[in-house]
């Protein structure tokens, strides 16, 4: 999912402490927040933004292009489905600990409705200088600045470190896509990488992965077909191997999941895999990507 900054953005849970704090941070970057939705709070305003009782009511008054959900995990499904059914096409689901089967229901409905979902358990999306949807420090000038490197990251905190390293090295970002830390995600690594590959404003992709799951290996299959340079950092390569219950995980993901497996797959696909984030600068230079 990418944004142009022209989107009319809804904030679900705008009246909450986090919702109002982050709505103001997002607006600092340039995000056009047109409405909020909080059950029972219809008619209120937060920093001049009108609040509605639900997404359907907000959608009657505004053309909503995107929504950011600051709602508790246990109500994420009903809140996200409200947005899907009201025709919102870009949905950023921040909550951690959303039940996985709730996520699956959201994603199935979103797919049928032609809506894109980022998350759950994501820090969101930043297009520096244009828009920020979520809880990334898109407003921080030492971490985000407009540029031509696309970043994909599961983690928000590590994504922040990577973006800091890029800006310190003189680079800027075309987009930061935080895909989220859950096993079931609306936007997977491969889907985010493909989006950046097709994005004219992106010259190179930095893929930030973590041990566990098979998403980086799956993305490597696509990386092999790319002409844009890909630099990757995989967190957790020094961690002890995880034990698994049952055989199903091994049957479904095969030998994928370890740091070694991810590094091998990405290296064979032509990506440069670095050992620490500070080496990304040198890797981009070597790949001919100028700041």
């Amino acid at each position, binding site marked *: 999912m990418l944004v142009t900054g022209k989107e009319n953005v809804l904030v679900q849970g705008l009246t909450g402490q986090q919702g109002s704090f982050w709505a103001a941070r997002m607006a600092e970057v340039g995000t056009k927040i047109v409405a909020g939705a909080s059950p029972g709070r219809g008619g209120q305003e937060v920093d001049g933004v009108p609040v509605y009782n639900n997404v359907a009511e907000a959608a009657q008054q505004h053309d909503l292009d995107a929504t950011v959900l600051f709602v508790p995990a246990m109500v994420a499904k009903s809140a996200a489905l409200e947005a899907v059914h009201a025709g919102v096409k870009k949905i950023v689901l921040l909550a951690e600990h959303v039940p996985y089967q709730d996520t699956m229901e959201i994603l199935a409905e979103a797919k049928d409705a032609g809506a894109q979902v980022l998350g759950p358990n994501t820090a969101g999306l930043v297009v520096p200088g244009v828009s920020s949807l979520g809880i990334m420090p898109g407003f921080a000038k030492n971490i985000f600045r407009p540029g031509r490197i696309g970043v994909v990251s599961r983690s928000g905190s590590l994504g922040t*470190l990577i973006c800091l390293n890029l800006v310190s090295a003189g680079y800027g970002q075309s987009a930061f896509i935080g895909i989220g830390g859950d096993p079931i995600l609306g936007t997977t690594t491969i889907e985010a990488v493909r989006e950046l590959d097709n994005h004219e404003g992106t010259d190179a992709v930095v893929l930030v992965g973590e041990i566990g799951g098979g998403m980086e290996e799956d993305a490597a299959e696509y990386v092999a077909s790319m002409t844009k340079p890909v630099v990757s950092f995989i967190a957790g390569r*020094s961690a002890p191997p995880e034990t698994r219950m049952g055989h199903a*995980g091994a049957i479904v993901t095969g030998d994928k999941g370890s740091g070694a497996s991810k590094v091998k797959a990405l290296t064979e696909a032509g990506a440069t895999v670095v050992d620490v984030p500070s080496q990304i600068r040198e890797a981009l230079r070597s790949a001919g990507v100028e700041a």
Partner: protein
Amino acid sequence: MDLLEHFGKRLLHDAGIPTPSGTTAVTSEECAVAAAQFGPNVVIKAQIPAGKRGKSGGIRFASSPKEARTEAGQLLGSVIADFKVEELLVEQSVDIARELYAAVLNDPVSKGPLLVFSTDGGMDIEEVSKSHPEKVLRAPIDIRLGLDGTAAVKLLDGTDLTDEQRGSVADVLVRMYDVYRTVDAELVEVNPLVLTSQDAVIALDAKISLDPGAGPRHTELMQGWVAKLPDTATDLERQARELGLNTLIEFDGSVGVLANGAGLTMTTLDAVNHYGGKPANFLEIGGDAYTKATPALGLVLSNPRVRSLVVNFCGAFARTDVMTEGVVNAIEELRPSIPIFFSIHGTGEEEAIRLVRDRLQIEPYDLMDDAVKAAVAATEEMV
């Protein structure tokens, strides 16, 4: 969160899936009594939340109460795959004509439930899956529609099961899917799912993992049934859990690490290793736990092996000013004698850096790498 076999089997049984007759036992005597009731031939299974019990000696066979008592005596109190055996499941042995494999689990690729089935079940299913992937059926399920009997029978079309066997196996698959949905499982696996010589279908094992995120919907299951931690957990790890910091893992290195978010914490450990040091712990205080910086730092410092400390914060949702205030409070209270190296960026960083400068007279590093290098060097100087 993994359920012990006997809890998993109870869920299967309650859903109408046949399981062997049996009961649990916590002493050799109870095991002998159970063997008398369900025997003469019984299977005695260690109730630990670990796979491959058959291969690690956790499953025994007995043909009399006396033998059962002996086997139980060997199993109880022994340690298998890091777990102390404290409970056994004693079951009537089943006449096995064929071992099948069946599982329902969350699939990251189709983003929905996945049914996995094979007529080549048993201990070597992972090898079968690698060498003969065509022998393992995989069927994504639309979670909004679920799995009905007709669809389940159709799935089994390509197998060499008889029509009658297909019907009864399909019935078990549908019920397994119902269990998966009812308890918000991440995994419901039966291996082996046994066909007897009379063509009865029996679940000989049960591996059920619950989704902790769905815990609020299943408080009883979560409290009573979820399997315990490994008995190899250290005192520090146990203390951390009592404080609600479930992520602490202790290592044998000397560089203490406190960071926020799993990704950044792993990266900090990777950097410690990369620059020649050894981390003393993994502990992240991201997400909702970012307000727990004070007790978290107390834990890291209570490890006597720690000779230096790296505090690495990159604030997104987790505000670095809030975390740093917690850390600074802890340092002022505990007055640690070891050197501490900070790197702080992101949400709240200006206030956070000011706190460290003003109250601790420490200058944070701009690059994580430099903070880590300094911490590693500090441990070497002290050797």
